[in-house]
């Protein structure tokens, strides 16, 4: 993949956190109106485990709520980017369903399947202990993503 050629194809991943939203702010400040850019704002929707719920109905309910929340996250991201003046870029949003073991992998798959040359993710600044126990999406992306530039917003 040609990184230079795809640099203007930007994938922004949001997770509902403030840091991820700051990625939108930073992007807007860098590209301005964004003419010539293609920007996709995504959030990864990982189904909650059925083990956490006493029955199928409560699981289904939680799953739907999570999906609705995901749709809100990307819609708000898009609105914020437009509000900040990025009006000429080609924009779209997507809720990416996470089928694999982790969110980072889902983001990397999205990046590589649609040839995004730039990936923007937020970093929540977790402690060492939290990173051990829960993992870090941004660290994994920095480590495993190929043929693209990764912007990590902290």
């Amino acid at each position, binding site marked *: 993949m040609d990184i230079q050629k795809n640099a203007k194809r930007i994938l922004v991943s949001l997770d509902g956190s403030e840091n991820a939203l700051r990625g939108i702010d930073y992007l807007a400040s860098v590209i301005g109106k964004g003419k010539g850019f293609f920007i996709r704002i995504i959030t990864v929707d990982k189904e909650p485990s059925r083990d956490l719920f006493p029955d199928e109905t409560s699981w289904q309910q939680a799953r739907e709520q999570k999906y609705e929340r995901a749709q809100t996250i990307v819609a708000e991201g898009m609105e914020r980017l437009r509000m900040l003046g990025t009006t000429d870029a080609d924009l779209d949003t997507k809720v990416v369903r996470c089928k694999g073991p982790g969110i980072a992998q889902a983001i990397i798959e999205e990046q590589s399947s649609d040839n995004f040359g730039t990936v923007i993710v937020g970093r929540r600044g977790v402690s060492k202990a939290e*990173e051990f126990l829960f993992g870090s999406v941004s660290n994994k992306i920095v480590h495993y993503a190929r043929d693209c530039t990764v912007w990590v917003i902290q």
Partner: protein
Amino acid sequence: MSSQVKEIVKRLRPSLSLGEYGKVYSDTSRFMEISYGDIIELDGNHYLVLRDEAERSFGIEDPKYWVKRTILLETGERKILKLAFFEKFDLKLGSLKIPCYRSPKKEARILDLVQRDMRFMQGTSTRDEAGNLVRIIDIVSGKRLDTHVFEIDADHERYFHEIFPTVLEKFMESCRAIKFLHDHGEIHGDIRRDHLWIENRTGLYRWIDFDYAYNFQENPFGLDIFGLGSLLIFLTGKNLYTLSNLEQAGLDPALAERFKPEDFSLLYSNRIANLKKLFPYIPESLNFVLLHFSKGAELFYETVDEFLDDLDRALSDIKKGICLI
């Protein structure tokens, strides 16, 4: 109702005499009501309840009303019945709080997965008349591994050279058992010192209690791996060490001066992870593994395989008597 229990006991276990005869339950929804002298009927089998199980925590008995110690009257075998109980609570690990869910479904699924694999407790599951998922567990006759190791009558140096290599080999097999779960997309979920037992008859190390579930997004196995690391620290040291228990553990309290913040456990800031500073004969390769669970760690294990690869090297060094200082 008590006459019904009396009749069943008399028919199935005539030699058994009870102080109290209670009720027969085929619906276990109200498990708080079920106690000594009651019978739980499942799939035509009759489980006479002896008592609620309890966990000891900080010297206090914490009764688990949903876990019943029973006798299966048809065979005379002792069984533990874990009745359906859903709860969400915060699991505290050092200063971290992790939302944790008790999941009968998860434990039942793992019991199926590990059938005849004696590295795990064994059992089956069934539904009571009201559809509650009940797990029927074979009792592991033995002792907590940490208690067993702590009580070994040897000083640390002798323990480490003569006994620990076998303990480590067997512990590594327990780690492979956890890897087996991970390979099948499952986690143990509650790896701590009181959940690995040594069986009296066979000397096998066996995992118990798999009903904790979590909403981990990125690193589902991290908690299990941290649990394995904490257990390894205990087994290596034959005890847990803090700056305040060195003298009590027969060590020179002046050793405390050697320790820096990065020498302590990543999650429990008073527990020493860098055991080589206490016991210099611990090989570098083993201490290297321990330090992955310390505050000074820069890299973490993401899989049990990585942990086992390093332990393989450590075991080989211990067997060769290598101790690179």
